[in-house]
């Protein structure tokens, strides 16, 4: 034990509960100390909830067009109208379209004569929640006119709705991809770490080879090979599979390394010596002690998946319209003239950044919390 930690752990504690805290409770205590991780957890929960019930949260269907608002900027939610009068019910103003006589560009201004109050949990067009359950409630809607909180794209489609529907695809690809990665990584890493010898060598070599090929070009090559005739759903799973096929190596390495080092740990050796069965050793002693670690690694792998999908779709070799994902949406912002004129098209990018930050913070918090008896960053 190092000098620094020995002092801390050897020392007499004035709070007698210390020794009796269960590991799980310690993990939770340590996690809760990470305010940012806790906040991130909530941010992610909310985003996944929104993505899950996209039909309810999005005011419009992803392909519904408002032909009178092409490349219209985001509207502002207001309580006070142009006359200075306060309205309890928030509202938005409609657009007034002008064509700039010099540049022939569309320019929208607020039309204060058209006031559209916003209604919450109101009934609207019928939809099928998750494609199955019929419903017609919307979080936000107007009874006349349109509400475009994030503006519209070149076809007049509501960006806010599209971002929400895009979240469903982008966020789920991250999760499903990680679950696949997790399965592959644990299976191969575990087998390699457990059997050792030649199997280990083969898995190690495979990992090395896959990691030697730059990830994005490899993704690009694999997704370029996806048949163009596939259905959107097929492409979706194809892309997920590609991301996992390339991504499992990191996790497998972690699992293998943990497995190998755990085999030599005193408590595992001790369990073996007192005659615990192999199954008991694996499931009762080894698995719990590296599960937290593995879950953390997996959490930190989610943003990589999401970024991968976004990058591929952005390049036009991942998901393609009519599928809506954040990467597909960002394709619209590919050239910078578009960005200069219609900066709101970058909002999906902001969502990507938010989710990636949240996952990273969550993973960091989990990593620090995962090792209940070590002091942050310290050696044990």
């Amino acid at each position, binding site marked *: 034990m190092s000098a620094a930690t020995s002092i801390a752990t050897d020392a007499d504690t004035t709070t007698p509960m210390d020794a009796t805290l269960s590991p799980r409770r310690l993990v939770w205590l340590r996690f809760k100390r990470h305010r940012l991780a806790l906040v991130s957890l909530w941010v992610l929960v909310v985003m996944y909830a929104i993505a899950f019930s996209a039909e309810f949260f999005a005011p419009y269907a992803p392909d519904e067009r408002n032909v009178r608002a092409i490349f219209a900027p985001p509207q502002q939610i207001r309580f006070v109208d142009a006359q200075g009068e306060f309205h309890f019910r928030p509202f938005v103003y409609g657009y007034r379209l002008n064509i700039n006589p010099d540049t022939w560009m569309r320019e929208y201004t607020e039309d204060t004569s058209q006031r559209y109050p916003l209604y919450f949990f109101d009934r609207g067009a019928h939809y099928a929640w998750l494609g199955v359950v019929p419903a017609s409630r919307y979080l936000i809607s107007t009874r006349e006119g349109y509400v475009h909180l994030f503006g519209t794209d070149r076809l007049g489609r509501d960006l806010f709705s599209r971002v929400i529907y895009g979240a469903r695809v982008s966020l789920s690809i991250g999760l499903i991809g990680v679950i696949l990665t997790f399965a592959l990584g644990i299976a191969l890493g575990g087998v390699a770490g457990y059997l050792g010898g030649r199997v280990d060598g083969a898995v190690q070599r495979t990992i090395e080879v896959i990691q*030697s*090929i730059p990830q994005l*070009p490899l993704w690009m*090559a694999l997704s*370029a090979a996806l048949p163009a005739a596939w259905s959107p759903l097929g492409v979706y799973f194809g892309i997920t599979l590609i991301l996992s096929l390339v991504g499992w190596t990191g996790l497998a390495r972690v699992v293998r390394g943990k497995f190998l080092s755990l085999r030599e740990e005193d408590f595992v050796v001790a369990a073996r010596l007192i005659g615990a069965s192999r199954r008991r050793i694996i499931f009762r002693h080894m698995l719990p002690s590296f599960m937290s670690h593995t879950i953390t690694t997996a959490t930190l792998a989610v943003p990589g998946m999401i970024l991968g999908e976004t*990058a591929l779709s952005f390049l036009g070799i991942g998901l393609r319209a009519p599928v809506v994902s954040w990467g597909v949406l960002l394709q619209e912002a590919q050239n910078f003239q578009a960005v200069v004129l219609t900066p709101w098209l970058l909002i999906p990018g902001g969502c990507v950044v938010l989710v990636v930050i949240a996952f990273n913070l969550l993973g960091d918090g989990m990593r620090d919390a995962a090792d209940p008896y070590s002091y942050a960053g310290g050696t044990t």
Partner: protein
Amino acid sequence: MLNYVRRRVLAMIPTLALISVIVFALVQLPPGDIVSATLDRLQAQGVEVSDTQIEALRAQYHLDDPMPVQYLRWIGNFLTGDLGYSIAYEQPVNTLIWDRMGYTLLITFSSLLFTWIVALPIGIYSAVRQYSLGDYFFTVVGLIGVAVPNFLLAILAMYAGFSWFGISVGGLFSPEYIDAPWSWARVGDLIAHLWIPTIVLGAAGTAATMRVMRANLLDELKKPYVVTARAKGVRPVKLILKYPVRIAINPFISTIGWLLPTLISGEAIVAIVLNLPTTGPLLLQSLLSQDMYLAGSFLMLLSLMTVIGMLISDLLLAWADPRIRYE
């Protein structure tokens, strides 16, 4: 040490062999082959192709040979420097690829340098002044840096360049220098254009390296040998420079191992957005048009670059850490 170098270089060979098999498989993966792709293209142009011509083409590309034979022919040609023929460009891959590989190498290398020059001092600062205002600031910057996809950063850089400076960011040369012969002015022009892709590409790696450096150093600062040195009466500044930094340098060198593939990956997409004359845009096009010799060559060379980079990083590591070379 020599022994270690030899062992490490020999270990590269099977890795590269396996990579070449994977790349070859990738080249073969899309439905159809070169001839059918060519036929499609010719027919789209309204050119009639007879069966004998098809036969001749198939024979020319040895498409009827078994796969292993085709693989051996491909890799054999590759090793002798014949990278095949680009259907889409109707040129040998060799004439298309090397300039672009050169620029890719240049940008990757300058980003690597940028990453180190920026991340090293900041990482040390953040660890030594843990929980200071500056540490928090850099932590936040690092978090954002890791989270912003580099193609988004590239777009933002162009946006900023256009709206603030009124210049069009992108490309590696001003229009007047694109086809000009090499001269000092052209080199200067290149450097003037290089810094934006360098920063855009290096940002994520810098942020990550900064965090790695900080964490490593914090770990090291708690190690008993640091306490020993302090108990010897070594002054703080000397202590930090001599011990933990010296040891944190090791993982730092090993960052080449993961930075390089990341940079090469990132370069592909940044180059596409910023319209750089590097491998990225051509790789994308070759993949989209199923120009698989070209795509295969790019994949193979980029992987080769990565493998060599990792070799260099391992050798540097062995040089820096006596424990490794004696293993």
